[in-house]
């Protein structure tokens, strides 16, 4: 049960690849945020998002070894 849960958390790590490696999805100027075009704030927002997802994955595997 726990083992399956930890595997599930690792799948979260796909999200940054999906979100960032298809640029047509975010290659836009609008909507802007604090003067930043979408292209820029979207990618910058993925930094904390990825860190958070990795943290969730970390919590699920840290006791493995």
């Amino acid at each position: 049960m726990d083992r399956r849960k930890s595997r599930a958390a690792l799948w979260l790590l796909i999200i940054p690849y999906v979100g960032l490696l298809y640029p047509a999805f975010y290659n836009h100027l609008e909507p802007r945020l604090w003067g930043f075009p979408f292209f820029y704030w979207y990618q910058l927002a993925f930094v904390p998002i990825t860190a958070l997802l990795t943290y969730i994955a970390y919590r699920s595997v840290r006791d493995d070894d």
Partner: protein
Amino acid sequence: MTTDPAAAPAVWTPTLNYAALAVFLFFFLLVTVMGFVAARWRKPETLAHIDEWGLGGRNFGTWITWFLVGGDFYTAYTVIAVPALVYAVGAYGFFALPYTIVVYPFVFLVMPLLWKKAKEMNYVTSADIVHGKYNSRALELVVAITGVVATMPYIALQLIGMEAVIKALGLSGISVGPIHNFPLTIAFLILAFYTYSSGLRAPALIAFVKDIMIYIVVIVAVIVVPLKLGGYGAVFDKAGADFAAAGKGGLLLGGNQMAAYATLALGSALAAFMYPHTLTGIFASNSANTIRKNAVLLPAYTLLLGLIAMLGYMGHAAGIKVATNNDIVPALFDTLFSGWFAGFAYAAIGIGALVPAAVMSIGAANLFTRNFWKAYVNPEVTPAGEAAVAKVTSLVVKVGALLVIVYLPTKFALDLQLLGGIWILQTLPALVFGLYTNWFRAPGLLAGWAVGFVGGSWMAWGPEGLKPLQALPFGGPAGTTVYIGLVALALNVAVAVAVNLVTARRPVAAA
């Protein structure tokens, strides 16, 4: 182009500023002392052991690893070249941002497994792991050679970063006898001596100073510069207007740039931790969990990098013109800040060159010692003997990089670095696949490496010099332009699988 020189904004020229120079020299002196004192930091029983000299005793915890890998991966050249590319072409230059985001899930999943192998078997290098897994001297040798050859121009690039700040201080062009770039030579020789005596402890200790300085510089710049220039909206608008006027670059990717952007980001991310210097940082940590925690914490540097890239647009907003794009960051600080803070920023970048250059030379020296000297010259070498060989090799590697920068055109190092990125990516199957499966064998991996290495170099070879991108014949009339490293990796894996399928399987040895 205007024909009236009076109407054109003046091109930035560096001048000697004593406040900037004084601040720079103070910090350079500080880290020099730290570099030598580092031999006594977390003092081992003896430094005459390759685990101590080359891996800092495999004992670095979460914070030291964070500063070391951060200081080592986000180099001085990054601080100079990423804004320079953004200044020149706009959105495309930001590929460094997705690159340094998607690298961490990969680090999280793969690097703890590599660390465990290295720790269990006392391995020091990537090629050690490959030899241990496949028991093939040939595969070990090509992984080691690829690592050294890819690292040499990377060290040279750090010198280019350092050269940019020495120029900004108004000190370039000082020759003493046959030595063209005297300040650069002195700075690098000092680095070589304390790396020789302290090993990995020197850059690990200096990384604290370097990284804190860079954080201060960038945080001040991203707050103060937009205030002076009318906010981020104005910065983007001015940059966008400049690109439109020049008819080149832009705030968004062009249609043919999107596949290039994504494949450069992914290919660079896969290559990043195949380099000896990043792997040295990994192997030097004290546990697999330290590495996992760092995969969570290191993205802080990526945020910093994204903001550093913005400096390229700020250069447009400040109306700065430069003779070469690599001057844009020094010119921005020189133009918008007082002398002492500009000096602080130059020192941060200059010290930022020392940390990676030191770790790179140690990583290359470890490869030479373990996978050439121990494998072919003296198999009975003791750990103390290994440390002695590695120390001398680190000196040779650094002097070699220095000679390249001082006596050969800059383009040579840049071209070699580009090829190096493609080459190092070809070591991924040999190093990583074995962590997950016992199916692959040495002949297939060796053939795959050869095809990837030669094929990648051949594709990069263009009539007008080397290029990182190749148009593939699908997805529209103009084709789809992608990063060559990734194409070569795909060939590499395909050949490895094919050869593995057709060659007879020998009796399975214990993995």
